[in-house]
């Protein structure tokens, strides 16, 4: 029995695209690690938000795993609660039938020493680590990272590289060229190749 793909996009037209614009297609299996490179404004974030279900595709088919992790380009975090509380609340949002270990997720990006600190009191770099760690909560089968290198120091990038390498999930990274994301995974494609 073949496992269904973690992500399948067939002839998708994004919300902002003209009627004559080329349609997007992509297929990725569990364990695939892919970096999609595209310049500013080419539609990476719109595509990511369409995959996550935040935006509707105008046409085409979007199929994806039900368990998905997402790292937004601009992290939206509750600043008034502690890192530990944040992960505890996220666990409450996850379905009960999946593995949820907030301590393990915090360890992935060395957040454990900061567990008791309020998120608002942490630097932008540490907030980005929280933003990354939450994507691995709930045993996701598909992880989408939108410009994950933002505000990360070299240690953070190393952690991210290791976490991606160890993950069994399908990991898709979206980034502009030459931001350092090229070092995270081996397979790179241009956004235009999706058309």
């Amino acid at each position, binding site marked *: 029995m073949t496992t269904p793909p973690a992500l399948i996009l067939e002839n998708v037209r*994004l*919300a*902002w695209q003209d009627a004559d614009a080329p349609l997007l297609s992509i297929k990725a299996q569990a364990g695939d690690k892919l970096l999609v490179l595209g310049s500013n404004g080419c539609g990476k974030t*719109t595509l990511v938000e*369409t995959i*996550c*279900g*935040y*935006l*509707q595709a105008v046409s085409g088919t979007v199929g994806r795993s*039900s368990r*998905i992790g*997402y790292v*937004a380009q601009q*992290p*939206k*975090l*509750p*600043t*008034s*609660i502690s890192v530990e*509380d944040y992960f*505890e*609340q*996220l*666990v*409450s*949002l*996850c*379905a009960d039938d999946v593995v949820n270990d907030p301590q393990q997720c915090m360890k992935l990006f060395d957040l454990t020493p900061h567990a008791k600190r309020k998120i608002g009191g942490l630097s932008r770099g540490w907030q980005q680590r929280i933003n990354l760690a*939450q994507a691995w909560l*709930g045993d996701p089968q598909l992880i989408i990272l939108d410009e994950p290198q933002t505000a990360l120091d070299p240690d953070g990038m190393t952690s991210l590289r290791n976490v991606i390498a160890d993950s069994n999930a399908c990991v898709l990274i979206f980034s502009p060229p030459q931001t350092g994301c090229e070092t995270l995974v081996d397979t790179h494609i241009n956004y235009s190749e999706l058309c």
Partner: protein
Amino acid sequence: MLNLSTAVFRQLLAWPILLSGALWLTLAYNLSFDKDLGAASLGAFLSYIVLASCALILRFGYVLQQRRQQGWLRQDSLRRTTGRAVIAEAGAAVCSLLLLVVCAQLIVLAFNPAVNGQSESHHIVLSRVESDNSWAFNWDDSIPVGSKLCLTFDFENAPKGVIESSIAVKQRSAPVTAGKIFYWPLSADDVRDRTITLEAPAEHNISLIRPIARLVIERPPISALPRLLLNQLLFFFTAIALCLFIFRRLKVNGNLASMGALAISSLPNLKGSHLLPDVGALVACGLRFERTALTTSNIALFTWLAMGAILIYISCKNLVANKK
């Protein structure tokens, strides 16, 4: 779920809000029951509690908006457990209202204030002459069954020797004597219709001394306060549900959603409005309280609560993606 609900509850009732609430309750108590400042009326006290509940709903809308900005909505929709988050939010809001009404009850229990000693309140009702021997009276609010219409008849033009007559309403009638105040106890039908037409025998030629009557309505005693406060809680349950529905399904800013929810919830209080169940009496306060408190019918109440439950259920459904 409890974890989520507690988090929203703590966000909703942060320390400054709790402190403001305590101050407001103290002020409400003093302004309502202090013998120099207040009206010694439960209606006045309830009006301050209604204001606090409205402020709490506005605060709830603000917190919902804050949670949207903190990314909880996106997390919720991504992890596909939407129902859990909505129920936690509704639960936290209901619990915060429950805390308010419990504290309001406790403050009254602790200090046992003196309220207006008269067990009945009196309200003026104007008559409309239907014919020479019949008079109609209308009132706007729902009032308790058993309230009495009180009026005096003039026998000056009656035939000589006639000092007694009878007043009829539909099938019922009661004797009326010259110079004595006439009381007509209102039946369930009269109360439901909000109008009554009194008819005297034409041959007696009697008339009203003044074209007005008094409605004599029994005041709810202080022992009814728990039920009155519970009524407020039930009323605001649907307001909370409405706020969640507007916020989640119509994707409106949380602050606007709470204002919209309060505005829509106030519709049952509008005269002649039949858009929503007649549950305005659940939040009756001030002078209106003495006329309408505890008059909400069970059907209207359950319809109102069912509307709230349905709105929460719809809000629990997974969100449809935006169109850019």
